[in-house]
Every structure is written in structure tokens, then in C-alpha cells.
């Protein structure tokens, strides 16, 4: 068992434990904090897979921006423990559905994956800086149009959020 495999197993234990903590904790704030930990663990997985840019984007966008927005809304609504109750009898039907989903998806994905596939670790021969430069070149040459469309999407989402939240002022004549 190599060092990388041990590292992977410990990290995946942390990821699954924090996901379960998010699912089961009664306080929404604790759920959000567990989810932050889970996102950071996934960022470390991206580093293991040799994708440093995605790892940093994961930390800043997901664990930073998105989860801060979540925490902000939870505290704004005072929704820490709203309807946190669930009884364990209700879990049987969704639980069995989820078990079927897990088995089927794992079976299909593993059966379709390449048989002798091993993930290449970011070895010393591959320079990370070059890796990042290639990524940027691909992003701004081959994928330039989707990149611009994404900026329009973000603008529309911003306008939509402002319009939804805005207090409606009736104009009386």
C-alpha cells in the first residue's frame, strides 16, 4: 500500500464523515460548516489528481463565497433549527432508494471505466506552472465562447437575485 493510497483512504473517510455530518446534524449552521470541510477535502482530492487550479477555485468559490452566502442566509432567516426534526421510521423508504442508487451508479461507473485505469499523480516531471499555462491557453482559445457566455450567465444571476429580493414599491397616483 503506497503512501498516496493511505492518504486517499484517510481523506475519503473524512469526506464521507463530513457529508454524513451535514446530512444528520440538527442545526443548519453545523450542516453548513460540515459542508465547508467537505468542500476543502474535495479540493485536496483535486490536488491529488493534478488539478491545482480547480482546487484553488474550489476553495475560493465553493468553500469561500458560496458557503458564506449560505451562512449569511441561515443567520438572516434565523433558520438554525427550523424543522430539523426527522424520525428514523421515515428514513426506510428513501434510504432503500438511495442504497439502490449507490449500488447502481457505482456498478455502472466502474463497469464502464477503463479497465486498467490508474490516476497519474502529479509527478515531478510535469511542471505545475506549465500545466497551469496550458490550462489557461485552452480556456482562452478553445473555450473562449463558453467563457464569455458564463460571464453573461453570472450577470443575469446577479440581476435576478437583486430583482427577487428587492422590496416592491407601489406607485400610488
Amino acid at each position, binding site marked *: 500500500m503506497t503512501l498516496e493510497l493511505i492518504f486517499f483512504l484517510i481523506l475519503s473517510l473524512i*469526506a464521507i464523515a463530513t457529508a454524513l455530518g451535514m446530512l444528520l446534524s440538527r442545526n443548519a449552521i453545523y450542516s453548513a460548516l460540515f459542508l465547508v470541510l467537505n468542500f476543502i477535502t474535495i479540493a485536496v482530492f483535486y490536488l491529488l489528481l493534478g488539478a491545482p487550479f480547480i482546487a484553488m477555485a474550489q476553495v475560493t468559490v465553493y468553500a469561500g463565497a458560496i458557503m458564506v452566502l449560505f451562512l449569511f442566509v441561515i443567520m438572516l432567516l434565523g433558520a438554525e433549527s*427550523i424543522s430539523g426534526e426527522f424520525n428514523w421510521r421515515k428514513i426506510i423508504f428513501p434510504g432503500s432508494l438511495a442504497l439502490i442508487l*449507490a449500488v447502481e451508479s457505482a456498478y455502472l461507473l*466502474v463497469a464502464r471505466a477503463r479497465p486498467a485505469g490508474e490516476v497519474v499523480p502529479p509527478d515531478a516531471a510535469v511542471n505545475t506552472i506549465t500545466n497551469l499555462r496550458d490550462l489557461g491557453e485552452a480556456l482562452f482559445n478553445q473555450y473562449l465562447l463558453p467563457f464569455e457566455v458564463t460571464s453573461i450567465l453570472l450577470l443575469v444571476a446577479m440581476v435576478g437575485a437583486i430583482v427577487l429580493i428587492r422590496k416592491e414599491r407601489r406607485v400610488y397616483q
Partner: protein
Amino acid sequence: MVPINYYIILSAILFTIGALGVLIRRNALIIFMSVELMLNAANLAIVAFGSILKSFSGQIFVFFVISVAAAEVAVGLALIVEIFKSKRSIDVDQMSSLKG
């Protein structure tokens, strides 16, 4: 060397936990967080596949998924705040005004 199957199985487990969260929790915010967890599980699988194919396309696709998720969260949380303002609750079982 970690076999890719391990990453895929981990991704499937995380996705299933997210789906279970959507099914059993009634708090709209927790359901939304579970959706984010499912997105992340899919992203992990995409990056693993991209890494095995030695292609940047997987990473770039995940980059787009992250930005779309940011847009989705902004609009979704605005909707949840609006629902809370009108109903004083974010329990999804109580959002049944359209039921005949």
C-alpha cells in the same frame, strides 16, 4: 497510484449521500446544500476521468460547473429568502398552497 475506481466509488457515495439529503430532510436550506454536495461529487468524477485521459477538458468543464453553481446559489437563496418572507417557514412540506 490510486486506481480510478476508488475515485469513482467515492464520488458515487458522496452523490448518494446528497440524494438521501434531498429525500429525507425537510429544511429547504439543507436540501439546497445536498444539491451542492451532489454537484461536487459529479465534479470529482469529471476531474478523475480527465486526469486519466490526460486532458484539460475535464478541468475546464468543472470550472464552468463551479461558476454555474455560483449563479444557481445566488438565485436559489434569493428564492428561499422570498419564500420565508411570505410563509414564515422554509419547511418544504408547508409549500403546498397550490394543492387542490
